[in-house]
Structures are given as C-alpha cells and as structure tokens.
C-alpha cells in the first residue's frame, strides 16, 4: 500500500477526499433511512433533504477523481515494474506486463463496489426531497414545474451516475481483456508494448466517458438548485427548527473547494508547461529520426536507405540484429535488390549509420569499412544522445535526441568535386575518439559546401 501511495503525487490528498466523500455519502444514506422511517415530512426534513442532496452531489463528483487516480497509480506501478525488468530480461517484462494488465482489469470491480456508495444515497436524497416537498401528490399548482425538475434530475442521475460509468467500466474491461488475449500469443518482448498501448487507449476512453458523466451531473445539480429554491418556507410546527444547519454545510463546501483548488496547483503548473512531444518517436514511423541535438547545429535530414545501428557489441540492419560478418553480404543483397527493382536508376550507395554519440570511433570505422566493401560510399552518421528534462510533476524525463551528418568516402566512383580535399582521420592533429567528435569535425570542415569527404 505504501508503494501505491508514493507512486502518484498527492495521493494522501486524493485518498483523503475520497474517504470524506465516502463518509459523507454513508451519512446521507443513514439520514435517508431515518427520514423514510419517520414517515410524514416536516420542515426539518426538508432542510435535511436539501443538505444531503448537496453532500451526495459532492460525493458523486469525487468518485470519478478516485477512478482516475486509481488508474494512474496502477499504471505507475506497472511502469516501474516494466522499467526494472525490461532492460535485463524482455521475457520477464512480458510476464510482468501480462500480470499487471490483469491487475489493472481488477480496477473496474473495485469501482463497482465504490460507485453505489455515492449513487444510491443520491437517489434516496432526490426521492426524499420530492417527498419533503409534497410532490407529486400535494401542491397541485406547483406540480408541473417541480415534477419535471424531478424527472429531469432523476433521468440525468441515472444516466450520468449509473449508465455512463457502467458503460465506461465495461469498455475499459473489455479492451484490456482483449489486449491480454492478443498478447498471450506474441513473442515475450512484444507483449509489453501491445499491452501498454491498449491500456492507454482504454484509459483515454475511460477519461472521456467519466468526464462526460461528471458534466452530465450538472443537470441534476441545476434541478436540485431549482427545487431547493422553490421550496415553501412555512413556519415549523414540530419544534424541530434549531438555527440554520445549512450555514456550516455551505462553509464545509467552500473549505473543500479551496482544498481541491490548492491540491490541483501542481497539476496546473505541469499543464502550463506542456511536455514536448518526442519527434524522434513520431519520425520513427516514417523511418527517419528528425530531432537535432540542440547543441549540434547545421545537421541534415535523413535521406538514405538502409539504417545500420550499432552499439559497443552489437549491430542491427534496418532494425534486425545481424552478425558483423554478415553485414557486408546483406548490404550487397540490398544493393542488388535495389538495382533489380529500379533498373533505370543509378545505385545511390547510401547507408545511414546510427549510434550513441559516445560510441568509440574505432567501432564506427569497422562498420564503415564493411559498408565500403559492399560498395556503399555515401553515409549519413546519425548520432544520438540521451537528454534529461526536469518536469514539475513528472520528474526527470529521458529523451533520446538524434542528429544526422552526411559524408562520402573519397574513393572511386564518388567525384571529389570542386577542389574539396578529403579529411584523413588519422592525420588530424587531434584524431576524434567518439562518433560525436567526428560529427563535430565533419560539420566544421563542411562549412558552407554541401559535401565532405573522408579517408579512414
């Protein structure tokens, strides 16, 4: 439970509001039962009916917040478990994704238990208010307006308080169950991404429906206000009149409103400064990273075909792992496939090499040599670096940023052009040690010209 509370900011506030709402709605339920048992409505009954109508409206509005909070807390736990497992063991991360997807699915059942606590006393309050007002049996003159106000409020309450949340919960549950069903047949490392995206879609759905429910509750609120303003103020005949109980209830409402406003201050701060989207991730769907490292100016847009990705030990060609000794052969296959597909075109001979900015240059030189062996002479070096941004609520966010720089080998088939002298890496005064250092040198050497040639 402790972990649950620390997983989401301001949990004690939200949990406290939820507890107050639950207590208030239970109190109104007790009041409702007491009034029903007493039979004839007195003037004090009218006051009581009005009071707990207000309290139950407040309680009903807290329930959607609790829903959102529970979902956010579960998701945060989910993310932490995935984060700790996915780097070392994708299979284990897949298992955790399945288990936590199933536990997220238990949320609707919890909600089904919470919701009636607020819903039924609210209906009881409406019924009692009508009874206290003498509707629809007495007071014939006022009957039509009040009767319609009552009918409208009841309909809105049933729709917003019961039908919409039930629909939202059912859809959420169904979406997650179907995602779990699909994930079970996937490879271990594919389970987590599928479940995460299914859950975020289901949650977005849930938020929309629950916000809709909360907005629809404005109708019974307005109807309740209208009813309460048209109540006749006859003198009390049973001696139950003692002061004005509505004053302190109103005061509590203001206090609660102030607490909610203050508690939401960090949220406002977070939303005032929107999270920048991750253009790398968005660009990836097009196959091209588009973000420049902020301190590396004058870089290029990716234009070349195959992408070779490397780290200190492994290699990937177009996203699939590949052994070093097979790289030249596979690039050659791609070259011949290109020529077969576009016989009228000249082979562009370009390859993009993507790596962390801190990758040792020796490692890159090996890959460049292999590409050259497969007749690829034009390159784009894509260097990436992790950037960390600090957020008011979300904390530290890690983002990968990438920058690209084009260059060619000074070799047969690539024309050196108008007096461009190739850079020979080994003969530089300070030979670059990392891929980022090379990128900087290439940018500096390129200057205003479009081309830069290197010699290993």
């Amino acid at each position: 439970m402790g972990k649950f509370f620390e997983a989401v900011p301001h949990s004690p506030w939200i949990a406290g509001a939820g507890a107050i709402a639950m207590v208030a709605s239970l109190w109104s339920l007790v009041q409702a039962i007491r009034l029903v048992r007493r039979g004839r409505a007195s003037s004090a009954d009218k006051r009581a009916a009005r009071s707990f109508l207000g309290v139950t409206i407040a309680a009903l509005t807290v329930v959607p917040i609790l829903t959102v909070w529970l979902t956010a807390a579960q998701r945060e736990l989910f993310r932490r478990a995935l984060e700790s497992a996915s780097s070392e063991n994708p299979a284990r991360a897949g298992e955790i994704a399945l288990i936590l997807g199933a536990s997220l699915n238990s949320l609707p059942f919890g909600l089904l238990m919470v919701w009636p606590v607020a819903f039924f006393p609210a209906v009881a309050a409406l019924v009692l208010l009508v009874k206290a007002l003498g509707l629809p049996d007495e007071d014939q003159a006022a009957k039509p307006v009040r009767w319609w106000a009552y009918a409208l409020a009841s309909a809105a309450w049933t729709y917003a308080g019961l039908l919409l949340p039930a629909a939202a919960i059912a859809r959420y549950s169904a979406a997650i169950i179907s995602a779990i069903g699909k994930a079970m047949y996937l490879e271990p490392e594919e389970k987590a991404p599928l479940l995460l995206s299914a859950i975020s879609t289901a949650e977005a759905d849930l938020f929309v429906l629950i916000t809709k429910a909360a907005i629809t509750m404005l109708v019974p609120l307005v109807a309740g206000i209208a009813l309460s303003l048209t109540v006749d103020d006859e003198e009390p005949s049973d001696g139950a009149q003692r002061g004005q109980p509505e004053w302190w209830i109103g005061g509590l409402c203001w206090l609660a409103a102030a607490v909610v406003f203050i508690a939401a201050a960090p949220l406002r701060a977070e939303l005032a400064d929107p999270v920048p989207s991750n253009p790398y991730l968005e660009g990836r769907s097009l196959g091209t990273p588009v973000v420049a490292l902020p301190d590396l100016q004058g870089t290029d847009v990716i234009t070349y075909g195959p992408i070779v990705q490397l780290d200190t030990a492994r290699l990937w060609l177009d996203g699939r792992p590949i052994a070093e000794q097979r790289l030249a052969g596979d690039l050659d296959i791609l070259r011949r496939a290109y020529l077969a597909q576009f016989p009228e075109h000249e082979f562009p001979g370009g390859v993009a090499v993507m790596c962390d900015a801190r990758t040792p240059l020796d490692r890159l030189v090996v890959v460049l040599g292999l590409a050259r062996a497969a007749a690829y002479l034009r390159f784009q070096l894509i260097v990436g670096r992790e950037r960390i941004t600090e957020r008011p609520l979300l904390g530290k966010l890690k983002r990968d940023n990438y920058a690209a720089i084009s260059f060619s080998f000074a070799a047969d088939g690539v024309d050196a052009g108008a007096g461009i002298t190739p850079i020979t890496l080994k003969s530089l005064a300070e030979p670059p040690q990392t891929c980022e250092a090379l990128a900087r040198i290439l940018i500096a050497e390129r200057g205003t010209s479009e081309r830069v040639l290197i010699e290993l």
Partner: protein
Amino acid sequence: MRRKAARLFLVISIAALYVSVMSALVQFALFSEQMIRVLT
C-alpha cells in the same frame, strides 16, 4: 429572510465545490494523458 440567505449560500457553495472538483478532474485527466504520452 435568514433562511432564504442560508439556502442561497448553500446553493452557491455546492456550485463552487462542484466547479472546483470538476476543474481538478479535467486537469487530472489532461495530466494523465500527458503522463501516458510520456510513458508509452
């Protein structure tokens, strides 16, 4: 008169509570959406 004033006060208070809770709900929903975008 006092009863009328008390009733009006109650009604305005409930409305204020409702509006503040609703705005917090919307903010929280927007925040959750941002969080989901960052995490996935």
